[in-house]
């Protein structure tokens, strides 16, 4: 992947759209399918507003989004049918502050905490049960978090990150209650859950929770966002009420001094240009800061297909997660 890829891809899309308009011809047909507007002022890197909006709109790059989200749900049903219903526990006072624990048989086992995605707007622990078997059979507990969404919290991302942090602290403090090893807690996340997982890594665990600074022993974040400036400039700001304080506090890449967790970041080659760039730039920044990071590219996977690979010990996301936990496939 080169830095030239983004402009050439966008050029090609414009050319294809232009060709379609030419084929449509003059008159009524042309009115139905107008030529694309000339490129507008650049709002982020070399992207104009529409290009940036598209780069934060997964449906533009993953036409099978609904099909795959449906598979998350049906695969999660199958997982629950096989493993039994998870232990569902409250980590906080409001109804949404619950987490699902799929328990490994081994005693004092490591714990993988998963933070789901959904553009901060949607998603639930229920539909992210499907990776559980990969961890449970390899000897780790799998904990999927529920938390508020940005619509319910009036456009503010802070309540989500506050809950995710509190959920991780709950796991650390209560690991022994479900056979987990508090000294082997790992975090994974996908998409906006990759963003929230990144924020978890820059938490001041000592000051805010009285926990060890390195309470998270490793992290695996796929297809996430690590600097919110371009997101704020995109159409996502229609429903996320960004402020300078939110943008700064929740841009993990600006707080690398607080990063003490070895981590792996991934994206698919069919992720949007911005989702690829976010991961690539974050990996480079962490490396430049002298911190341990592994960067894996899933060749031929789009944003949602990458997530599915967490369920397999031999898929890019699932293999990276087991590697990070020093576990072998079952």
């Amino acid at each position, binding site marked *: 992947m080169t830095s030239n890829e983004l402009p050439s891809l966008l050029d090609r899309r414009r050319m294809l759209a232009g060709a379609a308009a030419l084929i449509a011809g003059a008159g009524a047909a042309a009115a139905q399918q107008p030529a694309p507007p000339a490129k507008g002022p650049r709002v982020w890197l070399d992207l104009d507003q529409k290009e940036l909006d598209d780069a934060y709109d997964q449906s533009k790059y993953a036409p099978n989004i609904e*099909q795959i989200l449906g*598979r998350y749900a*049906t695969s999660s049903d199958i997982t629950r049918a096989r493993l039994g219903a998870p232990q569902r526990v409250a980590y906080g006072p409001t109804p949404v502050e619950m987490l699902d624990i799929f328990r490994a048989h081994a005693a004092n086992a490591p714990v993988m905490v998963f933070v789901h995605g959904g553009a901060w707007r949607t998603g639930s622990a229920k539909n992210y049960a499907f990776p559980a078997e990969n961890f449970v059979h390899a000897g780790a507990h799998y904990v999927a978090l529920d938390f508020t969404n940005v619509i319910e919290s009036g456009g503010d991302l802070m309540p989500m990150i506050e809950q995710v942090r509190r959920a991780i602290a709950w796991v650390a403090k209560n690991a022994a209650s479900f056979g987990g090893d508090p000294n082997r807690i790992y975090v994974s996340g996908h998409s906006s859950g990759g963003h929230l997982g990144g924020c978890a890594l820059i938490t001041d665990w000592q000051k805010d929770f009285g926990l060890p600074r390195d309470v998270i022993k490793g992290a695996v974040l796929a297809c996430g966002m690590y600097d919110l400036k371009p997101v704020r400039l995109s159409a996502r700001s229609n429903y996320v009420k960004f402020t300078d304080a939110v943008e700064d506090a929740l841009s993990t890449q600006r707080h690398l001094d607080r990063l003490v967790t070895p981590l792996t970041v991934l994206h698919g080659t069919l992720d949007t240009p911005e989702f690829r760039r976010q991961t690539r730039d974050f990996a480079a920044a962490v490396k430049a800061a002298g911190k341990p990071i592994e960067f894996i590219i899933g060749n031929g996977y789009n944003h949602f297909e990458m997530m599915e690979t967490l*369920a*397999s010990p*031999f*898929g890019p996301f699932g293999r990276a997660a087991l590697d990070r936990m020093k576990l072998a496939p079952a």
Partner: protein
Amino acid sequence: MAAGSTTAEAQQAGAARAKGPLVWLNMDQKELDDAYDQAVYAPNSEQIAKRRTVNSAAVRERLKPKRVAYGPTPVEMLDIYTTRQPNAPVMVFIHGGAWRAGSAKDNAESAELFVNAGAHFVVLDFINVMEAGGSLFPMVEQVRRAVAWVYKNASSFGGDPNRIYISGRSSGSHLGGVVLITDWQKDFGLPADLVKGALLSSGMYDLKPVRLSKRGAYVKFTDEMEAALSTQRHLDRINCPVILAHGTYETPEFQRQTRDFAAALKDAGKQVTLLVGVGYNHFEIPETMANPYGLLGRAVLGLMNLRAV
């Protein structure tokens, strides 16, 4: 829904033009042609084919298969991914590609599942129908000979000749079906129950509608070929448990072929399991065989009595 809307578009296109004479069940020629053209129902076919290639390359890099000849012509080779366990069961995989394309090299993505679970994984190369001048017989003959080679030479790579299983996808499942109706005793002097179980996904088990479709343009079907290579017409020769699978996003004919074959096996009193992959298209469902917790991966490990999880 991407694949769903493609199906809907195909149906809409069908409604927009006058329906022609029915050539198979309730389908006119275009509908039947489309039902044997995966691209019409799986818009991401190229993406997934590339993914299979790169994932296979990564697997080959990690596991380094042995490549062995099972016959005299250059294409008659097979790749063996060996497990460490001695006297281990063997899975023989028959690739798909509409009988026209595909190779052992690009169909290795499931190897780790088997090797890790304690089985050898053998992927076959064989001639394609274009090279064979439109006849399917040379492909079938080679695939059968390759399976016989595995039986006779299993101990040379630590395999147990009494635990040989086969799997296939798409046209490879057609060929796998034909393997199950082989007369091993008469043709090879081998035990009739040489194959101990089969997992066939997204295959074809009666060639009549295929012959009527546009695939007839490159496969030179004859009455003899259609009869001999329609597994569903030779159920009496099947003597092992069979798992069949298709995805809900497959073409109507690929769903029907599997459904009808499963029903016919059941009626004949054979051991058959039908798996339906909800939300998977023709190219996506085979990927689940690379995951021990995926639809096909779980099923195939169960079939081989490996690591019940």
